[in-house]
Protein backbone atom coordinates (compact mmCIF):
# COMPACT_ATOMS: atom_id res chain seq x y z
CA UNK A 1 0.00 0.00 0.00
CA UNK A 2 2.74 2.36 1.00
CA UNK A 3 4.67 1.32 -2.09
CA UNK A 4 1.80 2.07 -4.38
CA UNK A 5 1.22 5.59 -3.02
CA UNK A 6 4.93 6.26 -3.13
CA UNK A 7 5.03 5.27 -6.74
CA UNK A 8 2.10 7.55 -7.48
CA UNK A 9 3.70 10.54 -5.80
CA UNK A 10 6.96 9.96 -7.64
CA UNK A 11 5.04 9.93 -10.93
CA UNK A 12 3.34 13.20 -9.98
CA UNK A 13 6.68 14.73 -9.04
CA UNK A 14 8.26 13.60 -12.26
CA UNK A 15 5.18 14.84 -14.12
CA UNK A 16 5.49 18.34 -12.63
CA UNK A 17 9.02 18.72 -13.89
CA UNK A 18 8.13 17.20 -17.25
CA UNK A 19 5.22 19.60 -17.53
CA UNK A 20 7.40 22.66 -16.98
CA UNK A 21 9.85 21.37 -19.59
CA UNK A 22 7.04 20.76 -22.06
CA UNK A 23 5.67 24.24 -21.41
CA UNK A 24 9.04 25.76 -22.28
CA UNK A 25 9.16 23.73 -25.50
CA UNK A 26 5.55 24.73 -26.14
CA UNK A 27 6.62 28.41 -26.21
CA UNK A 28 9.05 27.64 -29.01
CA UNK A 29 6.39 25.65 -30.87
CA UNK A 30 3.88 28.53 -30.58
CA UNK A 31 6.38 31.04 -31.94
CA UNK A 32 7.37 28.85 -34.87
CA UNK A 33 3.84 27.62 -35.62
CA UNK A 34 2.27 31.08 -35.57
CA UNK A 35 4.89 32.56 -37.86
CA UNK A 36 5.29 29.64 -40.25
CA UNK A 37 1.55 28.97 -40.63
CA UNK A 38 0.70 32.59 -41.34
CA UNK A 39 3.91 33.67 -43.04
CA UNK A 40 4.38 30.75 -45.43
CA UNK A 41 1.61 31.86 -47.79
CA UNK A 42 3.39 35.17 -48.13
CA UNK A 43 6.67 33.60 -49.06
CA UNK A 44 7.48 33.57 -52.75
CA UNK A 45 10.36 34.35 -55.06
CA UNK A 46 8.81 37.77 -55.69
CA UNK A 47 8.58 38.49 -51.95
CA UNK A 48 12.34 38.22 -51.46
CA UNK A 49 13.38 39.78 -54.78
CA UNK A 50 11.13 42.82 -55.03
CA UNK A 51 11.37 46.17 -53.29
CA UNK A 52 8.43 47.41 -51.19
CA UNK A 53 5.90 49.44 -53.18
CA UNK A 54 2.66 51.37 -52.62
CA UNK A 55 3.61 52.70 -49.19
CA UNK A 56 4.94 49.24 -48.29
CA UNK A 57 1.48 47.65 -48.60
CA UNK A 58 2.62 45.70 -51.67
CA UNK A 59 5.83 44.33 -53.12
CA UNK A 60 8.53 42.38 -51.36
CA UNK A 61 11.19 42.93 -48.77
CA UNK A 62 14.35 43.02 -50.89
CA UNK A 63 15.46 46.38 -49.47
CA UNK A 64 15.41 45.25 -45.82
CA UNK A 65 17.09 41.96 -46.78
CA UNK A 66 19.96 43.79 -48.49
CA UNK A 67 20.17 46.19 -45.54
CA UNK A 68 20.44 43.37 -43.02
CA UNK A 69 23.07 41.52 -45.08
CA UNK A 70 25.24 44.63 -45.46
CA UNK A 71 24.74 45.58 -41.82
CA UNK A 72 25.82 42.14 -40.62
CA UNK A 73 28.80 42.28 -42.97
CA UNK A 74 30.02 45.56 -41.44
CA UNK A 75 29.43 44.14 -37.96
CA UNK A 76 31.52 41.09 -38.88
CA UNK A 77 34.32 43.12 -40.48
CA UNK A 78 34.65 45.19 -37.33
CA UNK A 79 34.01 42.75 -34.52
CA UNK A 80 35.83 39.63 -35.77
CA UNK A 81 39.37 41.06 -36.12
CA UNK A 82 39.16 43.09 -32.92
CA UNK A 83 37.39 40.37 -30.94
CA UNK A 84 39.74 37.58 -32.01
CA UNK A 85 42.82 39.76 -31.45
CA UNK A 86 41.64 40.67 -27.96
CA UNK A 87 41.01 37.03 -27.13
CA UNK A 88 44.52 36.16 -28.37
CA UNK A 89 45.95 38.88 -26.15
CA UNK A 90 44.08 37.65 -23.08
CA UNK A 91 44.77 33.98 -23.67
CA UNK A 92 48.30 33.98 -25.12
CA UNK A 93 50.03 37.14 -23.88
CA UNK A 94 48.39 38.66 -20.84
CA UNK A 95 49.87 37.98 -17.44
CA UNK A 96 47.66 37.63 -14.42
CA UNK A 97 47.85 41.22 -13.20
CA UNK A 98 45.43 44.04 -12.41
CA UNK A 99 45.24 45.18 -16.04
CA UNK A 100 44.20 41.75 -17.29
CA UNK A 101 41.69 41.34 -14.49
CA UNK A 102 40.23 44.78 -15.28
CA UNK A 103 39.92 43.90 -18.97
CA UNK A 104 38.19 40.62 -18.15
CA UNK A 105 35.81 42.34 -15.73
CA UNK A 106 35.05 44.95 -18.42
CA UNK A 107 34.20 42.24 -20.94
CA UNK A 108 31.81 40.58 -18.48
CA UNK A 109 30.17 43.93 -17.76
CA UNK A 110 29.93 44.85 -21.44
CA UNK A 111 28.12 41.63 -22.29
CA UNK A 112 25.47 42.56 -19.72
CA UNK A 113 24.95 46.14 -20.92
CA UNK A 114 21.43 46.48 -22.41
CA UNK A 115 21.42 46.78 -26.19
CA UNK A 116 19.55 50.09 -26.08
CA UNK A 117 22.53 51.62 -24.25
CA UNK A 118 24.79 50.47 -27.10
CA UNK A 119 22.31 52.28 -29.34
CA UNK A 120 22.78 55.48 -27.32
CA UNK A 121 26.54 55.05 -27.40
CA UNK A 122 26.50 54.54 -31.18
CA UNK A 123 24.37 57.66 -31.51
CA UNK A 124 26.73 59.73 -29.36
CA UNK A 125 29.98 58.36 -30.84
CA UNK A 126 29.41 57.44 -34.49
CA UNK A 127 26.40 59.52 -35.48
CA UNK A 128 27.23 62.71 -33.61
CA UNK A 129 30.87 62.90 -32.46
CA UNK A 130 32.42 61.27 -35.54
CA UNK A 131 29.78 62.83 -37.81
CA UNK A 132 28.88 59.66 -39.72
CA UNK A 133 25.23 60.70 -39.48
CA UNK A 134 22.48 58.11 -39.24
CA UNK A 135 23.94 55.57 -41.64
CA UNK A 136 24.69 51.96 -42.42
CA UNK A 137 28.27 52.36 -41.18
CA UNK A 138 27.21 53.95 -37.86
CA UNK A 139 24.67 51.17 -37.20
CA UNK A 140 27.09 48.43 -38.32
CA UNK A 141 29.83 49.70 -36.01
CA UNK A 142 27.35 49.99 -33.13
CA UNK A 143 26.36 46.35 -33.62
CA UNK A 144 30.08 45.55 -33.92
CA UNK A 145 30.72 47.00 -30.46
CA UNK A 146 27.74 45.06 -29.08
CA UNK A 147 29.12 41.82 -30.58
CA UNK A 148 32.68 42.34 -29.33
CA UNK A 149 32.29 40.80 -25.83
CA UNK A 150 30.62 37.66 -27.22
CA UNK A 151 33.29 37.13 -29.89
CA UNK A 152 36.06 37.62 -27.32
CA UNK A 153 34.49 35.17 -24.85
CA UNK A 154 33.81 32.41 -27.39
CA UNK A 155 37.22 32.80 -29.07
CA UNK A 156 38.94 32.64 -25.70
CA UNK A 157 37.12 29.40 -24.92
CA UNK A 158 38.27 27.97 -28.25
CA UNK A 159 41.90 29.01 -27.59
CA UNK A 160 41.73 27.57 -24.09
CA UNK A 161 41.01 24.13 -25.51
CA UNK A 162 44.30 24.04 -27.46
CA UNK A 163 46.74 22.01 -25.36
CA UNK A 164 49.93 23.70 -24.24
CA UNK A 165 52.01 20.95 -25.84
CA UNK A 166 50.87 22.26 -29.26
CA UNK A 167 52.25 25.71 -28.45
CA UNK A 168 55.46 24.29 -27.04
CA UNK A 169 56.01 22.09 -30.10
CA UNK A 170 55.79 25.09 -32.42
CA UNK A 171 58.04 27.24 -30.24
CA UNK A 172 60.55 24.40 -29.91
CA UNK A 173 61.11 24.17 -33.66
CA UNK A 174 61.96 27.87 -33.73
CA UNK A 175 58.70 29.64 -34.54
CA UNK A 176 58.23 33.04 -32.95
CA UNK A 177 55.22 33.54 -30.72
CA UNK A 178 53.33 35.37 -33.47
CA UNK A 179 54.08 32.60 -35.97
CA UNK A 180 52.91 30.00 -33.48
CA UNK A 181 49.63 31.85 -33.07
CA UNK A 182 49.15 32.52 -36.79
CA UNK A 183 50.16 29.11 -38.17
CA UNK A 184 49.35 26.69 -35.37
CA UNK A 185 46.98 27.97 -32.72
CA UNK A 186 44.43 29.85 -34.87
CA UNK A 187 44.08 27.01 -37.42
CA UNK A 188 43.55 24.46 -34.64
CA UNK A 189 41.02 26.67 -32.89
CA UNK A 190 39.30 27.68 -36.12
CA UNK A 191 36.10 25.67 -35.77
CA UNK A 192 35.55 26.85 -32.20
CA UNK A 193 36.14 30.47 -33.24
CA UNK A 194 33.80 30.09 -36.23
CA UNK A 195 31.01 28.65 -34.08
CA UNK A 196 31.18 31.66 -31.79
CA UNK A 197 31.36 34.11 -34.67
CA UNK A 198 28.34 32.66 -36.47
CA UNK A 199 26.23 32.59 -33.28
CA UNK A 200 27.21 36.18 -32.48
CA UNK A 201 26.35 37.37 -35.98
CA UNK A 202 22.97 35.62 -35.87
CA UNK A 203 22.24 37.56 -32.71
CA UNK A 204 23.44 40.83 -34.27
CA UNK A 205 21.31 40.28 -37.39
CA UNK A 206 18.17 40.11 -35.23
CA UNK A 207 18.95 43.12 -33.03
CA UNK A 208 16.67 46.13 -33.32
CA UNK A 209 17.25 48.45 -30.36
CA UNK A 210 20.86 49.46 -31.28
CA UNK A 211 19.89 50.46 -34.84
CA UNK A 212 16.80 52.47 -33.88
CA UNK A 213 18.66 55.79 -33.76
CA UNK A 214 21.85 54.95 -35.60
CA UNK A 215 20.56 54.52 -39.14
CA UNK A 216 17.55 52.24 -39.64
CA UNK A 217 14.96 53.95 -41.85
CA UNK A 218 11.22 53.60 -42.15
CA UNK A 219 11.37 53.46 -45.93
CA UNK A 220 13.98 53.84 -48.62
CA UNK A 221 13.36 54.25 -52.29
CA UNK A 222 15.02 51.56 -54.38
CA UNK A 223 17.56 49.19 -52.91
CA UNK A 224 20.43 51.57 -52.06
CA UNK A 225 23.31 50.24 -50.05
CA UNK A 226 25.75 53.06 -49.51
CA UNK A 227 27.53 52.97 -46.18
CA UNK A 228 26.93 56.66 -45.55
CA UNK A 229 23.16 56.42 -46.03
CA UNK A 230 20.25 55.18 -44.00
CA UNK A 231 19.05 51.66 -44.65
CA UNK A 232 16.13 49.30 -44.09
CA UNK A 233 16.69 46.19 -41.97
CA UNK A 234 14.53 43.09 -41.42
CA UNK A 235 14.02 43.42 -37.64
CA UNK A 236 13.29 47.13 -37.88
CA UNK A 237 10.96 46.50 -40.82
CA UNK A 238 8.99 44.00 -38.72
CA UNK A 239 8.81 46.43 -35.78
CA UNK A 240 7.69 49.23 -38.06
CA UNK A 241 5.08 47.16 -39.95
CA UNK A 242 3.54 45.87 -36.74
CA UNK A 243 3.44 49.09 -34.72
CA UNK A 244 4.18 52.23 -36.77
CA UNK A 245 2.65 51.76 -40.20
CA UNK A 246 -0.49 53.81 -40.96
CA UNK A 247 -2.53 50.78 -42.00
CA UNK A 248 -1.30 48.05 -39.68
CA UNK A 249 -4.01 45.51 -40.52
CA UNK A 250 -3.41 45.80 -44.25
CA UNK A 251 0.32 45.08 -43.93
CA UNK A 252 -0.07 42.29 -41.35
CA UNK A 253 0.60 39.54 -43.96
CA UNK A 254 3.83 41.27 -44.99
CA UNK A 255 4.78 41.51 -41.32
CA UNK A 256 4.30 37.73 -40.97
CA UNK A 257 6.37 37.17 -44.11
CA UNK A 258 9.13 39.42 -42.76
CA UNK A 259 9.11 37.63 -39.39
CA UNK A 260 9.36 34.28 -41.19
CA UNK A 261 12.32 35.38 -43.31
CA UNK A 262 14.01 36.80 -40.21
CA UNK A 263 13.70 33.64 -38.12
CA UNK A 264 14.71 31.48 -41.08
CA UNK A 265 17.90 33.55 -41.45
CA UNK A 266 18.62 33.38 -37.71
CA UNK A 267 17.89 29.64 -37.44
CA UNK A 268 20.01 28.86 -40.52
CA UNK A 269 22.94 30.70 -38.95
CA UNK A 270 22.38 28.78 -35.71
CA UNK A 271 22.20 25.45 -37.53
CA UNK A 272 25.47 26.31 -39.28
CA UNK A 273 27.04 26.90 -35.88
CA UNK A 274 25.63 23.63 -34.48
CA UNK A 275 26.97 21.82 -37.54
CA UNK A 276 30.48 23.27 -37.17
CA UNK A 277 30.48 22.38 -33.48
CA UNK A 278 29.19 18.86 -34.16
CA UNK A 279 31.81 18.22 -36.85
CA UNK A 280 34.52 19.62 -34.65
CA UNK A 281 33.58 17.42 -31.68
CA UNK A 282 33.52 14.40 -33.98
CA UNK A 283 36.99 15.13 -35.32
CA UNK A 284 38.27 15.69 -31.83
CA UNK A 285 37.27 12.22 -30.66
Amino acid sequence: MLRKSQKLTSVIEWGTLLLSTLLVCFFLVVVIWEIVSKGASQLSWEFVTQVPTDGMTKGGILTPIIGTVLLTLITALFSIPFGVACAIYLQEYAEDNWLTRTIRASIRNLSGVPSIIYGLFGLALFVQALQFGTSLIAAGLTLGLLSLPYIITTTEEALMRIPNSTREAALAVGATKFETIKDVIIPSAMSGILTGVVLTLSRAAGETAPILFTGAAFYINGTSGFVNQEFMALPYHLYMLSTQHQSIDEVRPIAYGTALVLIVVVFLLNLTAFYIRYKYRKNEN
Partner: protein
Amino acid sequence: MKYKARLSLDIFFKYVFKATGLLVLALLGGILAMLIYNSFSFFMDVKPLDFITGIEWNPTAKIPKYGMVPLILSTTIVTFGAMIIAIPLGIGTAAFISEYASPRLKNILKPTIEMLAAIPSVVIGFLGIVVVSPGIANLADLSNGLNALNGAILLAVMALPTIITVAEDAIHAVPKTYKEASYGVGATKWQTLRKVVIPAAAPGIIAAVMLGVGRAIGETMTVLMATGNASILPTGMFDSVKTMTATIAIEMGEVPYQTTHYFALYAIATVLFIMTLAANMLGEYFINRFRKYHAA
Protein backbone atom coordinates in the same frame (compact mmCIF):
# COMPACT_ATOMS: atom_id res chain seq x y z
CA MET B 1 62.19 35.75 -43.96
CA LYS B 2 65.20 37.18 -42.17
CA TYR B 3 65.36 36.38 -38.48
CA LYS B 4 65.42 40.06 -37.54
CA ALA B 5 62.30 40.81 -39.60
CA ARG B 6 60.49 37.87 -38.05
CA LEU B 7 61.42 39.09 -34.63
CA SER B 8 60.25 42.66 -35.22
CA LEU B 9 56.99 41.34 -36.69
CA ASP B 10 56.57 39.31 -33.53
CA ILE B 11 57.05 42.37 -31.35
CA PHE B 12 54.81 44.49 -33.56
CA PHE B 13 51.91 42.05 -33.24
CA LYS B 14 52.39 41.75 -29.53
CA TYR B 15 51.50 45.43 -29.29
CA VAL B 16 48.65 45.11 -31.78
CA PHE B 17 47.06 42.40 -29.63
CA LYS B 18 47.59 44.39 -26.49
CA ALA B 19 46.01 47.45 -28.10
CA THR B 20 42.80 45.52 -28.77
CA GLY B 21 42.70 44.56 -25.11
CA LEU B 22 42.90 48.24 -24.25
CA LEU B 23 40.15 48.96 -26.80
CA VAL B 24 37.75 46.97 -24.64
CA LEU B 25 38.63 49.15 -21.66
CA ALA B 26 38.13 52.22 -23.82
CA LEU B 27 34.71 50.94 -24.87
CA LEU B 28 33.47 50.50 -21.31
CA GLY B 29 35.14 53.79 -20.35
CA GLY B 30 33.45 55.49 -23.29
CA ILE B 31 30.02 54.20 -22.34
CA LEU B 32 30.52 55.32 -18.73
CA ALA B 33 31.83 58.73 -19.80
CA MET B 34 28.84 59.22 -22.12
CA LEU B 35 26.36 58.29 -19.39
CA ILE B 36 28.02 60.44 -16.73
CA TYR B 37 28.57 63.50 -18.94
CA ASN B 38 24.99 63.58 -20.25
CA SER B 39 23.49 62.82 -16.84
CA PHE B 40 25.44 65.73 -15.36
CA SER B 41 24.15 68.00 -18.09
CA PHE B 42 20.65 66.86 -17.15
CA PHE B 43 21.17 67.46 -13.45
CA MET B 44 22.21 71.05 -14.22
CA ASP B 45 18.54 71.63 -15.13
CA VAL B 46 16.68 69.19 -12.93
CA LYS B 47 17.42 68.30 -9.32
CA PRO B 48 18.48 64.65 -8.93
CA LEU B 49 16.01 64.23 -6.09
CA ASP B 50 13.10 65.46 -8.25
CA PHE B 51 14.19 63.05 -10.96
CA ILE B 52 14.37 60.01 -8.70
CA THR B 53 11.26 60.75 -6.61
CA GLY B 54 9.02 62.56 -9.14
CA ILE B 55 5.81 60.68 -9.86
CA GLU B 56 5.06 62.20 -13.24
CA TRP B 57 6.93 61.70 -16.51
CA ASN B 58 5.82 64.25 -19.06
CA PRO B 59 8.77 66.02 -20.73
CA THR B 60 6.64 67.56 -23.47
CA ALA B 61 4.18 69.35 -21.16
CA LYS B 62 4.26 73.14 -20.84
CA ILE B 63 5.99 72.69 -17.51
CA PRO B 64 7.98 69.53 -18.27
CA LYS B 65 7.91 66.82 -15.62
CA TYR B 66 10.90 64.54 -15.31
CA GLY B 67 9.79 62.12 -12.59
CA MET B 68 11.26 58.65 -12.96
CA VAL B 69 9.01 56.78 -10.54
CA PRO B 70 6.44 55.63 -13.14
CA LEU B 71 9.21 54.30 -15.39
CA ILE B 72 11.05 52.45 -12.63
CA LEU B 73 7.75 51.08 -11.35
CA SER B 74 6.83 49.90 -14.86
CA THR B 75 10.14 48.12 -15.35
CA THR B 76 9.84 46.60 -11.88
CA ILE B 77 6.29 45.31 -12.40
CA VAL B 78 7.08 43.75 -15.77
CA THR B 79 10.33 42.18 -14.55
CA PHE B 80 8.70 40.91 -11.35
CA GLY B 81 5.84 39.37 -13.32
CA ALA B 82 8.29 37.75 -15.73
CA MET B 83 10.23 36.21 -12.85
CA ILE B 84 7.09 34.81 -11.20
CA ILE B 85 6.50 32.89 -14.42
CA ALA B 86 10.09 32.12 -15.35
CA ILE B 87 11.63 31.05 -12.02
CA PRO B 88 9.47 27.95 -11.32
CA LEU B 89 9.42 26.97 -14.99
CA GLY B 90 13.14 27.53 -15.37
CA ILE B 91 14.17 25.61 -12.25
CA GLY B 92 11.71 22.81 -13.03
CA THR B 93 13.06 22.46 -16.54
CA ALA B 94 16.67 22.64 -15.35
CA ALA B 95 15.99 19.94 -12.76
CA PHE B 96 14.25 17.77 -15.35
CA ILE B 97 17.08 18.07 -17.87
CA SER B 98 19.77 17.46 -15.28
CA GLU B 99 18.18 14.76 -13.14
CA TYR B 100 15.51 12.94 -15.14
CA ALA B 101 16.16 13.29 -18.87
CA SER B 102 18.01 10.51 -20.70
CA PRO B 103 21.17 11.54 -22.57
CA ARG B 104 19.24 11.30 -25.84
CA LEU B 105 16.45 13.53 -24.57
CA LYS B 106 19.08 15.98 -23.30
CA ASN B 107 20.50 16.18 -26.80
CA ILE B 108 17.08 17.27 -28.04
CA LEU B 109 16.17 19.60 -25.15
CA LYS B 110 19.40 21.58 -25.03
CA PRO B 111 19.33 22.71 -28.70
CA THR B 112 15.59 23.44 -28.30
CA ILE B 113 16.41 25.88 -25.53
CA GLU B 114 19.23 27.38 -27.58
CA MET B 115 16.73 27.87 -30.41
CA LEU B 116 14.39 29.68 -28.02
CA ALA B 117 17.28 31.93 -27.03
CA ALA B 118 18.06 32.64 -30.68
CA ILE B 119 14.65 34.10 -31.57
CA PRO B 120 15.12 37.85 -32.08
CA SER B 121 13.37 40.02 -29.48
CA VAL B 122 11.42 41.84 -32.18
CA VAL B 123 9.81 38.54 -33.23
CA ILE B 124 8.82 37.82 -29.62
CA GLY B 125 7.36 41.33 -29.46
CA PHE B 126 5.42 40.67 -32.66
CA LEU B 127 3.98 37.50 -31.10
CA GLY B 128 2.97 39.66 -28.14
CA ILE B 129 0.90 41.79 -30.48
CA VAL B 130 -0.68 39.03 -32.58
CA VAL B 131 -1.06 36.16 -30.06
CA VAL B 132 -0.69 37.22 -26.42
CA SER B 133 -2.55 40.53 -26.66
CA PRO B 134 -5.79 39.12 -28.17
CA GLY B 135 -5.53 36.23 -25.70
CA ILE B 136 -5.35 38.54 -22.68
CA ALA B 137 -8.08 40.80 -24.07
CA ASN B 138 -10.41 37.81 -24.44
CA LEU B 139 -9.71 36.25 -21.06
CA ALA B 140 -9.80 39.46 -19.04
CA ASP B 141 -12.46 41.17 -21.15
CA LEU B 142 -10.35 44.20 -22.03
CA SER B 143 -10.34 46.27 -25.21
CA ASN B 144 -6.75 45.27 -25.86
CA GLY B 145 -4.10 43.18 -24.19
CA LEU B 146 -1.14 45.51 -24.52
CA ASN B 147 -0.26 45.75 -20.83
CA ALA B 148 2.21 44.76 -18.13
CA LEU B 149 1.03 41.14 -18.08
CA ASN B 150 1.73 40.79 -21.80
CA GLY B 151 5.24 42.18 -21.33
CA ALA B 152 5.80 39.90 -18.34
CA ILE B 153 4.84 36.77 -20.31
CA LEU B 154 7.12 37.71 -23.20
CA LEU B 155 10.04 38.64 -20.94
CA ALA B 156 9.60 35.31 -19.14
CA VAL B 157 10.06 33.55 -22.48
CA MET B 158 13.15 35.64 -23.18
CA ALA B 159 14.70 35.10 -19.73
CA LEU B 160 13.95 31.35 -19.60
CA PRO B 161 16.90 30.16 -21.73
CA THR B 162 19.36 32.08 -19.51
CA ILE B 163 17.77 30.80 -16.30
CA ILE B 164 17.57 27.19 -17.53
CA THR B 165 21.14 27.06 -18.83
CA VAL B 166 22.77 28.55 -15.73
CA ALA B 167 20.54 26.64 -13.27
CA GLU B 168 21.13 23.39 -15.14
CA ASP B 169 24.89 23.88 -14.92
CA ALA B 170 24.54 24.49 -11.18
CA ILE B 171 22.36 21.44 -10.55
CA HIS B 172 24.62 19.31 -12.72
CA ALA B 173 27.68 20.47 -10.78
CA VAL B 174 26.39 19.22 -7.42
CA PRO B 175 28.76 16.36 -6.47
CA LYS B 176 27.37 12.88 -6.95
CA THR B 177 28.39 11.93 -3.41
CA TYR B 178 25.73 14.29 -1.98
CA LYS B 179 23.02 12.45 -3.84
CA GLU B 180 24.40 9.03 -2.99
CA ALA B 181 24.53 9.94 0.69
CA SER B 182 20.90 11.02 0.50
CA TYR B 183 19.77 7.87 -1.31
CA GLY B 184 21.81 5.88 1.18
CA VAL B 185 19.68 7.04 4.09
CA GLY B 186 16.53 6.09 2.18
CA ALA B 187 15.46 9.38 0.58
CA THR B 188 13.54 9.23 -2.68
CA LYS B 189 14.73 10.97 -5.83
CA TRP B 190 12.32 13.86 -5.26
CA GLN B 191 13.30 14.28 -1.62
CA THR B 192 16.95 14.26 -2.65
CA LEU B 193 16.27 16.87 -5.30
CA ARG B 194 14.36 19.16 -2.95
CA LYS B 195 16.30 18.72 0.26
CA VAL B 196 19.83 18.10 -1.02
CA VAL B 197 20.46 18.97 -4.67
CA ILE B 198 18.55 22.26 -4.93
CA PRO B 199 19.88 23.66 -1.63
CA ALA B 200 23.41 22.67 -2.64
CA ALA B 201 22.92 24.31 -6.04
CA ALA B 202 21.18 27.35 -4.50
CA PRO B 203 23.91 29.93 -5.15
CA GLY B 204 24.03 28.84 -8.79
CA ILE B 205 20.25 29.00 -9.06
CA ILE B 206 20.18 32.47 -7.50
CA ALA B 207 22.84 33.46 -10.03
CA ALA B 208 20.62 32.11 -12.82
CA VAL B 209 17.70 34.19 -11.58
CA MET B 210 19.82 37.35 -11.24
CA LEU B 211 21.15 36.98 -14.79
CA GLY B 212 17.55 36.46 -15.97
CA VAL B 213 16.53 39.63 -14.14
CA GLY B 214 19.39 41.53 -15.78
CA ARG B 215 18.24 40.33 -19.17
CA ALA B 216 14.60 41.26 -18.48
CA ILE B 217 15.35 44.77 -17.18
CA GLY B 218 17.46 45.63 -20.22
CA GLU B 219 15.17 44.16 -22.86
CA THR B 220 13.77 46.83 -25.16
CA MET B 221 11.87 45.65 -28.22
CA THR B 222 9.44 43.20 -26.61
CA VAL B 223 8.25 45.64 -23.95
CA LEU B 224 8.20 48.48 -26.46
CA MET B 225 5.84 46.50 -28.71
CA ALA B 226 3.69 44.71 -26.14
CA THR B 227 3.07 46.89 -23.08
CA GLY B 228 1.09 49.79 -24.55
CA ASN B 229 3.51 52.50 -23.40
CA ALA B 230 1.17 54.72 -21.38
CA SER B 231 3.11 57.10 -19.17
CA ILE B 232 1.05 56.66 -16.03
CA LEU B 233 1.72 55.37 -12.55
CA PRO B 234 0.93 51.67 -13.01
CA THR B 235 -1.26 50.03 -10.39
CA GLY B 236 -1.47 46.43 -11.59
CA MET B 237 -0.67 43.83 -14.21
CA PHE B 238 -3.54 44.92 -16.47
CA ASP B 239 -2.31 48.51 -16.72
CA SER B 240 -0.45 49.72 -19.75
CA VAL B 241 3.13 50.51 -18.74
CA LYS B 242 6.07 52.38 -20.21
CA THR B 243 9.38 50.92 -19.09
CA MET B 244 12.72 52.73 -18.95
CA THR B 245 14.00 51.02 -22.09
CA ALA B 246 10.80 51.74 -24.02
CA THR B 247 10.90 55.40 -22.96
CA ILE B 248 14.41 55.78 -24.35
CA ALA B 249 13.49 53.96 -27.55
CA ILE B 250 10.35 56.03 -28.19
CA GLU B 251 11.53 59.46 -27.16
CA MET B 252 15.12 59.46 -28.45
CA GLY B 253 13.81 59.54 -32.00
CA GLU B 254 11.75 62.66 -31.33
CA VAL B 255 13.86 64.95 -29.15
CA PRO B 256 16.06 67.76 -30.45
CA TYR B 257 19.77 67.23 -29.85
CA GLN B 258 21.18 68.42 -26.52
CA THR B 259 17.99 69.63 -24.88
CA THR B 260 17.02 68.85 -21.28
CA HIS B 261 14.73 66.12 -22.57
CA TYR B 262 17.61 64.61 -24.60
CA PHE B 263 19.87 64.57 -21.53
CA ALA B 264 17.01 63.14 -19.45
CA LEU B 265 16.98 60.03 -21.64
CA TYR B 266 20.68 59.51 -20.91
CA ALA B 267 19.93 59.92 -17.21
CA ILE B 268 17.36 57.12 -17.54
CA ALA B 269 20.00 55.06 -19.34
CA THR B 270 22.36 55.63 -16.41
CA VAL B 271 19.79 54.31 -13.94
CA LEU B 272 19.14 51.37 -16.29
CA PHE B 273 22.88 50.70 -16.54
CA ILE B 274 23.24 50.68 -12.75
CA MET B 275 20.25 48.34 -12.32
CA THR B 276 21.46 45.79 -14.88
CA LEU B 277 25.02 46.04 -13.59
CA ALA B 278 23.81 45.34 -10.05
CA ALA B 279 21.79 42.32 -11.20
CA ASN B 280 24.66 40.93 -13.25
CA MET B 281 27.24 41.51 -10.52
CA LEU B 282 25.04 39.79 -7.95
CA GLY B 283 24.68 36.92 -10.39
CA GLU B 284 28.42 36.71 -10.84
CA TYR B 285 29.02 36.88 -7.09
CA PHE B 286 26.76 33.86 -6.56
CA ILE B 287 28.35 31.92 -9.42
CA ASN B 288 31.78 32.46 -7.89
CA ARG B 289 30.52 31.50 -4.47
CA PHE B 290 29.04 28.35 -5.94
CA ARG B 291 32.30 27.46 -7.69
CA LYS B 292 34.42 28.08 -4.62
CA TYR B 293 32.06 26.06 -2.43
CA HIS B 294 32.19 23.02 -4.66
CA ALA B 295 35.87 23.28 -5.49
CA ALA B 296 36.68 22.91 -1.80
